[in-house]
């Protein structure tokens, strides 16, 4: 089976203006959502308490609300269904510091009389820990981006590095926008999802860039536009295929992985789609716009080859005792 067989070069760069408009709109829309709606920080970053309760029948949410009203500790608690009608999570901003009698125990006691239930999970994150996790989270994102930037600059050229970082920022922005739009709880797992998107999207970009690098080195043509078009077309089958297999597994994770893994799988789902798009339509055009000078690169390569040749010549002469 073949999805694409390379017969002619598609003019991807011809569509790059259109793609750029789409990207700018998407990114701006994401920022608009982030500013107006904001991220829905979960307990990991905001601090607070999550109690997951499973009933042996449909969860009596109204009765639960009534019971929780009696104690100030539960002020502002929200109850929502979690995966099935039997199961709910209670989210609270409050935390307690006692080891033996914590807010989870208080909740257990307060729910008495609402039916047969089992407390399946209690997450309490105190405010200092939350702030620390947030700081660490932001640091890890920055550090990962920086590490990648350095590596790509080292292996390719600085313009490649900047282009791939722009693509990454594009992907992360849109993924965050979607996370905000669907009011997904932002916890450590979403952060892990974002870091995975970094890796994944970059993966795609690098495969395309590698082809461009190869094209620039081997082709006689000095047109970067043509080289990019050819490279993107030649890697199109691979891009589609890998995106598909990754999409398959992320989708099964999203569908069947259970409620707890949902935010993570959602983030990845968005990331796979956006990451694939950006490697073709964002990273490569930016490289083109940066005016990567193929002619200059060829000259540089030629000079490098010449230098190596001369060095070799000298060495040969030295070895044969001429000098």
């Amino acid at each position: 089976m073949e999805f694409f067989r390379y017969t002619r070069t598609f003019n991807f760069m011809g569509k790059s203006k259109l793609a750029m408009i789409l990207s700018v709109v998407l990114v701006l829309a994401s920022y608009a959502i982030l500013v107006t709606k904001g991220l829905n920080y979960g307990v990991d970053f905001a601090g607070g308490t999550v109690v997951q309760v499973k009933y042996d029948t449909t969860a009596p949410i109204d009765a639960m609300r009534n019971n929780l009203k009696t104690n100030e500790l539960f002020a502002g608690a929200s109850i929502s269904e979690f995966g099935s009608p039997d199961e709910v999570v209670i989210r609270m901003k409050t935390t307690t510091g006692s080891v033996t009698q914590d807010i989870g125990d208080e909740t257990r006691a307060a729910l008495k009389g609402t039916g047969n239930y089992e407390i399946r999970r209690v997450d309490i994150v105190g405010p200092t820990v939350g702030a620390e996790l947030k700081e660490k989270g932001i640091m890890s994102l920055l550090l990962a981006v920086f590490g990648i930037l350095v590596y790509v600059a080292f292996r390719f050229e600085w313009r490649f590095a900047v282009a791939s970082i722009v693509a990454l920022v594009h992907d992360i922005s849109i993924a965050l926008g979607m996370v905000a739009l669907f009011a997904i709880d932002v916890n450590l797992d979403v952060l892990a999802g974002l870091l995975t998107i970094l890796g994944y999207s970059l993966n795609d970009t690098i495969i395309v860039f590698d082809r461009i690098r190869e094209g620039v080195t081997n082709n006689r043509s000095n047109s970067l536009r043509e080289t990019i078009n050819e490279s993107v077309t030649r890697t199109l089958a691979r891009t589609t295929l890998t995106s598909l297999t990754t999409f398959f597994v992320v989708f099964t994770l999203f569908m069947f992985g259970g409620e707890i893994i949902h935010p993570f799988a959602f983030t990845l789902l968005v990331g796979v789609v956006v990451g694939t798009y950006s490697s073709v339509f964002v990273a490569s055009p930016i490289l083109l716009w940066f005016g990567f000078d193929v002619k200059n690169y060829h000259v540089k390569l030629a000079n490098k080859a010449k230098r190596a040749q001369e060095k070799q010549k000298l060495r040969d002469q030295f070895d044969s005792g001429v000098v």
Partner: protein
Amino acid sequence: MKLNYRIVIFALAIIFGVVFSMPSLTQSETGKKVTLGLDLQGGLHMLLGVKTEEATKSRIKSIAASIKHYAERNDILIDGLVFDEDSVKFEVLDSDEIHSFDEYIGSIEGAIVSTSGEVISLVLTPEEIIKTQKEAVSQAIETIRNRLDQFGLSEPVVARQGEEKILVQLAGIKTQEEEQRARELISRAAKLELMAVDEDRNARVYNMSDSDAAAYGDIILSDAKNPSIKYLVSEIPILDGGMLTDASMGFDQNNRPLINFKLNAEGAEIFGDFTGRSVGKRLAVVLDGKVYSAPNINERIGGGAGQISGSYTVMEAKDLAIALRSGALLAPIYLMEKRSVGPSLGADSIKASLVALIGGFVLVIIFMMVYYRLAGVIANIALIANLFILLAVMSLFGATLTLPGMAGIVLTVGMAVDANVIISERIRELIYEGKSMHKAIEDGYANAMRAILDANITTLIASVVLYAYGTGAIKGFAITMSIGILASMLTAILGTHGIYQMLESKISKSKNNKLWFGIKG
């Protein structure tokens, strides 16, 4: 068909993978296995803070107690012995005796002594305060570890995190009651104090406020069983649990559980001296700020043994004895973070993630076979080998498999075939260009190598950062991702290359590119 070094290494890697992943897969008794994270097997994760300022206070209190004891033993009359957060002050009544303290006070470490007239004051140095607080954290870790070791759970984790946080992880907690018991055992101060009841004023205790009591150097404590009963006791204890050498559960004559304790030589001496001096008065046995009993002293008690009676259940008495034996917490601890997962939720998570893993795996396997035919089968062999090696490496290192870790494995399945997709596409291209099979395979691998390496290394960078900065379960994701990527270099690049080299003559002869690579021509 001929053997080559690549296929030999690949075969060895597969054998390694299968052999070392077996203990985990079959859940056998022997052999190294993957540990399931708390989120998958159920358990309790807590990050505890230490109220270190309390440690300084209790250090000061014990200095005050020792000064008092020294004065009484040497018949030096002192008055106005008071202490606050970091200093002790007292007055020597007979100014001739002021120097008889010099040697003793000089032996107290980390305090600056100043004398003005008959008043001697000791202030802890800032270094001493920091040292005391540091010790309080180390001591808390040690104490909690001791207590949990005796609790009967397998392999409890107690570790320092950062400067003054304590990480406690308890796997395999089955019930809410068990969790509650563990938490009580961990946080119990278990601070035993033997205190003198202020018999001169105790009759007025119900009309006294805390500040009234403080004016006499006393404090008001309530009874453990019946909080409405109050005692007025001297704030500076006769001795505390630091001089305890042993505690165990026993029974009284009515067969009710109680705790027997023994004091060390110094404690026994102080205890003997005090009881000898205080016949007819009462001694309050105070545990964690509550009076458990206040028996009359009928005679001097030597030997340094005592009892704490109270209406305990056998279980409570046992846990209390463990807590006393492992020592008191110098400073109270408090909860900073807690993650508790019930075993039933853990089991559900395992089930759900396995379904996702198997579902994703089957989809990818079928897809690769349909798209690439035999090249897809070869890629699938590499994928399966990858999973075995991943599991084997994790088992050997005793790595922890968490729910995000499972997600990492699922993702590895999707991304590990990437290398083979890149390679197969390259080979297809070269076949179309009319290259010989040998050239197509060798050049295909050579051309693909650089891209695969660059792509994998950048993903590794992200994973390593995640490992360094991630906490708890997220670390598990970084681990499975990293090992998956590294294993894929071995299986998808080296392994499949070996298979192609072995089958090369066969492929060339068959001339059936549709069967081998899923393309026409």
